[in-house]
């Protein structure tokens, strides 16, 4: 039965004529296999883009590389492999939430996620939810959120994936993935290791990228056990250990080093009975960094935050068409480090989500959340969204929300400068989307407007000491286009996915475009396959950006790949992939004075059995 449901789930996505009974079952199955069901169930009026594993395997494993070429999000990367932060719809690095199996994992220290500390190879899919999501995902989900989810499949299967890659700059990558299960249990595990000398040429100079070496190990373990038809226990775990030297700039040499340690664990107990679904989650997150100004010396500074989160989710199917979900969450954060004492923060939040399918074409959702935090007052936030499906090929989506971002441990407690009088940043936004789809084409068009006040910025006081203040008001607006094409003629398969974004993001005080927000960004992925062969091409156009005291030129970069699928034996498949990155040997800087790699090559072998 469950196996059938699984198949139904896979086949049923996007098919509007599934009968209600099946829908119910699928919903229940979603609850069983996914931890972040909100993303599916309570996001009708939002643009959600899913990047599946065949997209993931074409990028060099880091979340930065994946999203740079496959989404509207713009990245600032301090040289290849170094600290990388997003700007989603013109917002800043701490205004994009990264959500791991339903849990917001943005750093409590600086509010951000370094997208080069997420290895994508242990995830089946990465989802991008555009627009405000603070009601569901808490602090920081202002521009949008990026979701890393692991699914557990409860059917008899055992699959192994081994992937190995070697490329320029002595870059070695290895990954092993296991997925196994039966009717009542499921395990998937993945381990990935990346190591690179990263000593690429600075084009147009006689220099190379010195002190840019990095390696990291990423480990995921997810397991589920169905006790009976009503109870499921699940465990999710992720570890990341990163060791990077921080490369310098064209003008400043560097000898520094940075170590990241992240442990994320979650235990979940789900209970299903008739129209009720209840989930209790207990989560432990640990983030720690060590910064060595001189990698050869013993001195370092460090910071650490541990988070304990308890969460209860109750979904009630009030009628055939109405769902109500309540979430209460308690979190305790405790930090210690060289730059602050031992701060603690307690937070409690209560959330209610309502979803109503008024008629077959019309769905709307209402949601509201209130946080109570020990150090400051958080605003009440809400979200309203709706979708109207005019026909199978055209839908209109609309959402409006209020969102927030809390001050970080650094903002509050950093010594010197930490400011205990800060307020959370608060933001209103509205987003209108249109989606056209047919057999060959899918088109998403969005326009949005975001205004954020009380933006926290570190500014000098009259003694020259930098302190965070709620000073700025920023308005962002723009348009996004995403286009997906698919066509098959005989054995020839063509596919394309591309995006373009136009982003205005201005400080209200001077009406100037913020630094490091390009007005224009476009990305293109084109693939052609014939029998076992596939050719793909990726292109990124990144427009000019403002920097302090000037501008940084825009650039075009292209990557070309060739892959060959070969069935070694009945149960063993292999894919050999060769990629040329920076095909045109473009000289470019993503962040000023930090050149990006010259043309480079990568060979990757994947075995599935």
């Amino acid at each position, binding site marked *: 039965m469950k196996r059938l449901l699984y198949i139904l789930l896979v086949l049923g996505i996007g098919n509007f004529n599934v009968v209600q009974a099946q829908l119910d079952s699928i919903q229940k199955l979603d609850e069983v296999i996914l931890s972040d069901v909100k993303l599916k169930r309570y996001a009708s009026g939002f643009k959600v883009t899913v990047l599946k594993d065949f997209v993931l395997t074409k990028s060099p494993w880091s979340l930065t590389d994946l999203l740079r070429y496959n989404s509207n999000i713009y990245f600032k990367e301090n040289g290849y492999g170094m600290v990388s932060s997003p700007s989603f719809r013109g917002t800043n690095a701490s205004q994009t939430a990264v959500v791991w199996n339903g849990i917001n994992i943005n750093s409590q220290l600086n509010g951000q996620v370094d997208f080069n500390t997420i290895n994508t190879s242990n995830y089946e899919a990465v989802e991008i939810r555009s627009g405000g999501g603070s009601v569901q995902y808490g602090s920081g989900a202002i521009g949008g959120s990026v979701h890393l989810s692991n699914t557990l499949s409860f059917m008899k299967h055992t699959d192994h994936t081994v992937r190995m890659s070697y490329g320029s700059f002595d870059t070695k990558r290895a990954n092993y993935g296991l997925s196994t299960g039966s009717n009542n249990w499921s395990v998937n595990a993945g381990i990935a290791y990346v190591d690179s000398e990263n000593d690429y040429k600075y084009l147009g100079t006689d220099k190379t990228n010195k002190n840019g070496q990095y390696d990291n190990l990423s480990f995921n373990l997810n397991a589920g056990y169905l006790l009976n038809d009503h109870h499921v226990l699940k465990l999710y775990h992720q570890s990341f250990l990163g060791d990077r030297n921080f490369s310098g700039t*064209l*003008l*400043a*040499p560097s000898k520094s080093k940075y170590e990241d340690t992240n442990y994320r664990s979650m235990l979940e107990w789900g209970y299903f009975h008739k129209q009720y679904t209840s989930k209790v989650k207990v989560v432990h997150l640990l983030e720690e960094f060590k910064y060595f100004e*001189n990698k050869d010396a013993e*001195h370092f500074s460090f910071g650490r935050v541990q988070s304990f989160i308890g969460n209860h989710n109750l979904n009630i199917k009030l009628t055939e068409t109405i769902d109500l979900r309540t979430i209460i969450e308690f979190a305790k954060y405790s930090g210690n480090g060289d730059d602050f004492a031992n701060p603690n923060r307690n937070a409690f939040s209560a959330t209610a989500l309502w979803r109503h399918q008024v008629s077959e074409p019309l769905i709307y959702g209402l949601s509201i959340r209130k946080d109570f935090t020990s150090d400051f007052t958080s605003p009440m936030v809400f979200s309203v969204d709706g979708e109207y499906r005019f026909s199978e090929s055209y839908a209109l989506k609309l959402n409006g929300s209020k969102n927030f971002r809390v001050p970080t441990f650094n903002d509050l407690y950093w010594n010197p400068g930490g400011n205990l009088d800060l307020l959370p940043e608060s933001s209103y936004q509205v987003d209108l989307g249109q989606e056209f789809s047919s057999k060959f084409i899918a088109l998403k068009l969005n326009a949005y407007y975001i205004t954020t006040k009380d933006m926290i910025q570190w500014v*000098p006081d009259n003694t020259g000491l930098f302190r965070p203040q709620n000073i700025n008001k920023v308005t962002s607006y723009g348009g996004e286009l995403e286009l997906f094409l698919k066509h098959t003629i005989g054995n020839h398969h063509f596919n394309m996915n591309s995006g373009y974004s136009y982003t205005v993001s201005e400080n209200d005080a001077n009406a100037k475009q913020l630094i490091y927000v390009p007005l224009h960004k476009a990305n293109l992925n084109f693939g052609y396959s014939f029998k076992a062969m596939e050719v793909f091409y990726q292109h990124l156009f990144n427009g000019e950006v403002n920097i302090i005291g*000037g501008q940084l030129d825009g650039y075009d970069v292209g990557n070309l790949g060739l892959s060959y699928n070969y069935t070694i034996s009945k149960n063993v498949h292999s894919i050999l992939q060769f990629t040329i990155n920076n095909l045109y040997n473009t000289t470019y800087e993503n962040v*000023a004075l930090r050149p990006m790699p010259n043309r480079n090559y990568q060979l990757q072998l994947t075995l599935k059995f």
Partner: protein
Amino acid sequence: MKIKNNLVLALSLLVLSFSCSSDDDNHQQEPQGAYEDGMLITNEGNFGQGNGSVTYVSDDFSYTEQKVFFNVNGTLLGDTAQSIGFYDDLAYIVVNNSQKIEVVNRYTFQSVATIDSGLSNPRYITFLSGKGYVTNWGDGSNPEDDFVAVINLETNTVSSTIPVEEGPERIVTNGTSIYVAHQGGYGQNNIISVIKPNSDEVETITVGDVPNSMVFDNQGSLYVLSGGIPAWTENETGGQLDVINTSSNTVSATFGFDDNEHPSNLTYGESLYYTLNGGVYKLAVGSEELPTTPEIEVVNFNYMAIHNNVLYGVDAGDYTSNGTLQSFDLETNALKHSKEVGIIPSGIYFND
């Protein structure tokens, strides 16, 4: 690019010669370069952003040129332009986070040499007996590796190093000895190191906490202004002014500020001047008491200097857009001129 820079240079030379020739005075002396008779302002720029620069402002404020080093040499100056020292016709520009010193002709700004080996977080430079002396923090996180680098001015290389205590910052000389103020780097220190040429012995003098500026008066006494330990350390101390007898290298007099007063920017021109809480205070040499009312109010100087009875100060503004240079006539304490300079201006050097 090269042509463009030469063009800029030629144009600026033209402008200067034109303004000179139209000036109906008796100066027949050939200008030595475009950047004579004015001030060089070091603009640190933002740490890590590589936007350090030097601005030239003519004595009468009628002509300003931003990014002088880049205009003349076609390459960016570097990351965090800390300070300048003059020796003969040369200017030594200490570029902190680029770990180098750019040596240029002080009047034409043509590059002469780059010293980029043997320095570690260099801060300030002075010259004695034909050698350069540069304070270096070493690793900011390591209190044990601070030193003064000795520069061979013939070869433009670091010839030796003198280990000193934590956080050497300002460095001055009276022609006999070298005095190094240990502000303390990332921490706080309270000493002056005295270095004698041709000797490895380093003598230390204890002064107030966090010595941030030093000047000699015309009698040869050294005045050391200490800012005190800032409040955020939860170990706050007030500022202190120490007068050092340079014959015996001992403190001959001390002026104490209140515990919450953190003065800085001591400078000398007939009298001593310093900044405190947005005001400029004047202390006559030989005074027994610190002044209680400021001469000039509501300024926010990152650095100030006096030249020909005019006080010049730089204000870094919001630290991400261009700062300003202001001048005040010390006869009247009135604002004379104001000019936009570069990002985070922090040094004023008179290029006469």
